[in-house]
């Protein structure tokens, strides 16, 4: 029989180990999860929160951004996304510039994403089964948004398999690739004012005041 303090300590240690194990198991589930299942889970979870959270319903933008940062961002690969959007100029950027580009681009996308979520008004989703071999490491997951009186809007998530699990590196909405759309813009800015100019332009864009929260609910 161990003395009491020691027993407490072992109990605490056991609890910690179990807890850590549980957390790791949670990670492992995200890692092992098929890309289409991952997209479905995250989408439904986020939409459910948007629909039920009173602060978000009242237009609390900060809360939407926090939601995106905790639930959605871990499944995006911002390095690939930024590198693809910057395109051929990516190699001209130094490590510090790359980090800042990634950071600013991430902020811009999160802000835009928050506005898109604010526009959500109960449309239904259709999750299409993934057509890919189990060995594929580069897949496209299709989701469709159904709305009466319009053709369904198709959303394609281009995903790649990473050690941390499947990650999105481009989103195409109705055939419009986010990354491709930024490419011309970024290219123009870099040609005129270099990589630093692009960082500055993104910073300036990000410091603009957010549009009136919940403007669509006025």
């Amino acid at each position, binding site marked *: 029989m161990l003395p009491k303090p020691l027993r407490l300590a072992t109990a605490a240690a056991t609890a910690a180990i179990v807890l850590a194990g549980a957390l790791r198991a949670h990670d492992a589930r995200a890692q092992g999860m098929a890309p289409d299942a991952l997209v479905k889970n995250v989408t439904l979870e986020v939409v459910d929160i948007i629909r039920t959270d009173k602060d978000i319903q009242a237009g609390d933008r900060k809360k939407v951004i926090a939601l995106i940062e905790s639930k959605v961002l871990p499944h995006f690969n911002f390095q690939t996304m930024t590198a693809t959007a910057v395109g051929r100029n990516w190699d001209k950027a130094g490590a510090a510039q790359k980090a800042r580009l990634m950071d600013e681009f991430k902020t811009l996308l999160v802000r835009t994403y928050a506005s898109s979520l604010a526009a959500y008004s109960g449309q239904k989703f259709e999750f299409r089964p993934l057509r890919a071999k189990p060995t594929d490491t580069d897949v496209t997951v299709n989701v469709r948004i159904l709305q009466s009186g319009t053709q369904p809007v198709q959303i394609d998530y281009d995903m790649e398999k990473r050690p941390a699990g499947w990650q999105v*590196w481009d989103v195409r909405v109705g055939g419009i690739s986010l990354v491709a759309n930024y490419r011309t813009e970024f290219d123009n800015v870099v040609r005129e004012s270099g990589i630093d100019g692009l960082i500055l332009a993104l910073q300036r864009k990000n410091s603009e005041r957010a549009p009136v929260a919940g403007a669509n609910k006025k």
Partner: protein
Amino acid sequence: MTMRWARKLLVAMLLSGAAGCATTNGDPRDPLEGFNRAMFSFNDGFDEAIGKPVATAYRDVLPAQVRTWVRNFFANIADLWIGANNLVQGKPLDAVTDWARFGFNTTLGLFGINDVASEMGIEKHDEDFGQTFGRWGAGDGPYVVWPFLGSSSVRDSAGLVLDIHFDPVVNHDPKGVRYSMVVLRAIGRRADLLDASRILEEAALDKYVFQRDAYLQRRRSLVHDGNPPRAARELPRAEAPETAPLPRAIDTAVRLLEEPAPGAVSSGG
């Protein structure tokens, strides 16, 4: 009187187009960039002054259900020519689906205000003559921005002429009803885009370029019914130059984006 007004407008636009020629990026897809940018700011000004306020009022005053009825009503009329376009594009099954939609929605859906066909699982399509020409092999041609009508291309402008010529709403008599319907449809469409235009505002560094590229990408996707060829992806990996130790997907993606549509070529402003 209308003629004189139209001529003044045209002269004003041509002048502003000439003035706008200074700011171009030499994008090969957009040789008319100077003119287009002028049209774009003209449209933007019109939208700020009239389009957006009217559409916002429309959205705030009418309940969502009524707006859905309006959207469905015009969408139902459009299904007739969507079907015709599908037929001439060699997709008779899609055409039959479109006309079945029209049949169900016009009867069970009360003159189209309820989209019962979608609820039955008969999906709506998006077709027009510009897409038909694309399907037949016509490329986009230069990008064009038209006053009031907005983004287009040479191919899609040709399509637009036919779309408008055959448009049952534009051809409707008496004129009083015709004009009210055209205006109502335009307001409804603008109202449906309020969220999208706010997001565009927030996402773009250069709204003109962002909208242009989005338009061209969207049309390409529509011509291929949502599955444009992504040939570059099939390239053997060996052909990819071994460069910096970037994640593999970056190589693929950069190649993918740079090959099919050589975007802005650095020919200088």
